[in-house]
């Protein structure tokens, strides 16, 4: 934790705020294992902000764990349900996170004393090799900084979720960041719903905003996110007039993801060291029709992670994009935590795939469907190559 207990204040310039986001982006790109924590007895903004950061990291194929060391109101569990189908591990109560953490996110926490009481927190916070990113909107009073200098996105805002929305907007506008990390859209439905939940809940639908500035940005962000949501939702759901409406939207999303996961799971097959699932053209079309692109993207990542861990080596999931939107077949490949011998970026080189990227533990790539005469045969060829590469690196 910071040695000097400086009272939190607003970031003074737009330029400084942008520099902090740039610093955070660099850490996101260069590290693989993240722990996300908040304050004791977390409220909706705290949990929604943890879920939002979890979703971002999951989209980037990072290993992400949310730690809830203390109890929280069961009525907020609907937010955590988002994590189930997005490859985000949530630890509750006595369940302890893995400690091989490179970066810790501390969210919505006014001061160090409000972090949970797990003994290892002290160890992590005093470890100079672990970077600490802090995102918070609590200023003044007895608040004090927790994160590392240059990594404190601590500013005036309606909620911590609003600051996360700001950061995501900036990351989305950075085409280099998006391309390097194989990202297409950070504002998926569950991300928008999660951020809106935190914003609306913490400010009680905007009633508890303290300053004109908070009101100005709250109105702007709510409008921006609601417009995004309308564009992304087949049945209109913008302009939420109550938290209950948001709750219903989130609950229905969770049900949709579960059904999508079940559908994809029917295609799972196993080789000795690879578990995989290929959706052919008609199965892919069914998924898009019934669940939508956002749901498929998040669920396919969660399934790939699960398959990798179950196989102990590799998990692979492939599906064809909606032809109306994209000409590609998408492939997601993930390595088990227990198998570190193969850098998955080498798979892309070996297969001469240029349209793809990722990091040693996870890659995504896409091939134009028209360039694949027989998808099943092409997929089997990829599997054979993967088996050979596993064999080679095991000697």
């Amino acid at each position, binding site marked *: 934790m910071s040695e000097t207990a400086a009272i939190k204040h607003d970031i003074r*310039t*737009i*330029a400084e705020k*942008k520099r902090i986001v740039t610093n955070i982006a660099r850490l996101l790109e260069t590290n693989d294992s993240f722990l996300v924590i908040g304050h004791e007895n977390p409220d909706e903004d705290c949990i929604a902000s943890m879920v939002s950061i979890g979703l971002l990291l999951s989209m980037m194929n990072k290993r992400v764990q949310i730690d809830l060391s203390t109890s929280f109101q069961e009525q907020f569990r609907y937010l955590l349900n988002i994590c189930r189908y997005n490859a985000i591990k949530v630890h509750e109560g006595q369940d302890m996170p893995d400690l091989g953490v490179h970066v810790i996110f501390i969210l919505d926490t006014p001061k160090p004393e409000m972090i949970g009481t797990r003994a290892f927190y002290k160890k992590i916070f005093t470890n100079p090799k672990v970077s600490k990113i802090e995102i918070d909107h609590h200023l003044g009073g007895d608040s004090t900084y927790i994160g590392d200098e240059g990594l404190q996105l601590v500013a005036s805002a309606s909620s911590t979720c609003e600051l996360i929305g*700001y950061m995501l*907007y*900036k990351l989305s*506008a950075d085409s280099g960041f998006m391309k390097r990390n194989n990202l297409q859209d950070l504002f998926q439905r569950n991300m928008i719903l999660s951020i809106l939940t935190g914003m609306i809940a913490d400010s009680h639908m905007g009633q508890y905003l303290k300053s004109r*500035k908070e009101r*100005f*940005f709250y109105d*702007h962000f709510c*409008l921006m996110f609601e417009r995004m949501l309308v564009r992304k939702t087949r049945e209109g759901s913008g302009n939420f007039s109550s938290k209950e409406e948001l709750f219903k939207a989130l609950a229905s999303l969770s049900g949709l993801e579960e059904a999508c996961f079940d559908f994809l799971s029917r295609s799972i097959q196993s080789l000795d060291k690879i578990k995989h699932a290929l959706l052919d053209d008609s199965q892919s079309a069914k998924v898009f029709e019934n669940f939508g692109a956002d749901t498929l993207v998040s669920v396919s990542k969660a399934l790939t992670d699960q398959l990798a861990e179950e196989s102990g080596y590799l998990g692979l999931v492939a599906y064809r994009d909606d032809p109306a939107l994209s000409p590609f077949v998408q492939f997601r490949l993930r390595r088990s935590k227990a198998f570190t011998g193969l850098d998955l970026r080498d798979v892309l080189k070996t297969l001469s795939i240029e349209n793809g990227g990722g990091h040693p533990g996870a890659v995504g790539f896409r091939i134009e469907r028209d360039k694949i005469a027989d998808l099943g045969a092409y997929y089997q060829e990829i599997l054979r190559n993967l088996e050979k590469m596993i064999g080679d690196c095991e000697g």
Partner: protein
Amino acid sequence: MDSLEKIKKILKEKLDTDPADVQPAKALTDLGLDSLDMYEMIYEIETEFGVKIPDSEIASLTTVGELIAFIDAKKSS
């Protein structure tokens, strides 16, 4: 201080923009402002000039000169 000088001061303070770059013909995007920065700037401008810039007008203000003309028109109305 006229409106251009005030805009230069705000951009210098908030975005580290070189005042010499802030000229009426300059596009706001060329000064490094994305749409979210623009909202932050609008907040600062509204506070500094005591005018209200409706959301519906923001997209049409693409250059420093257009921004100043809008502010001056609002001030005199």
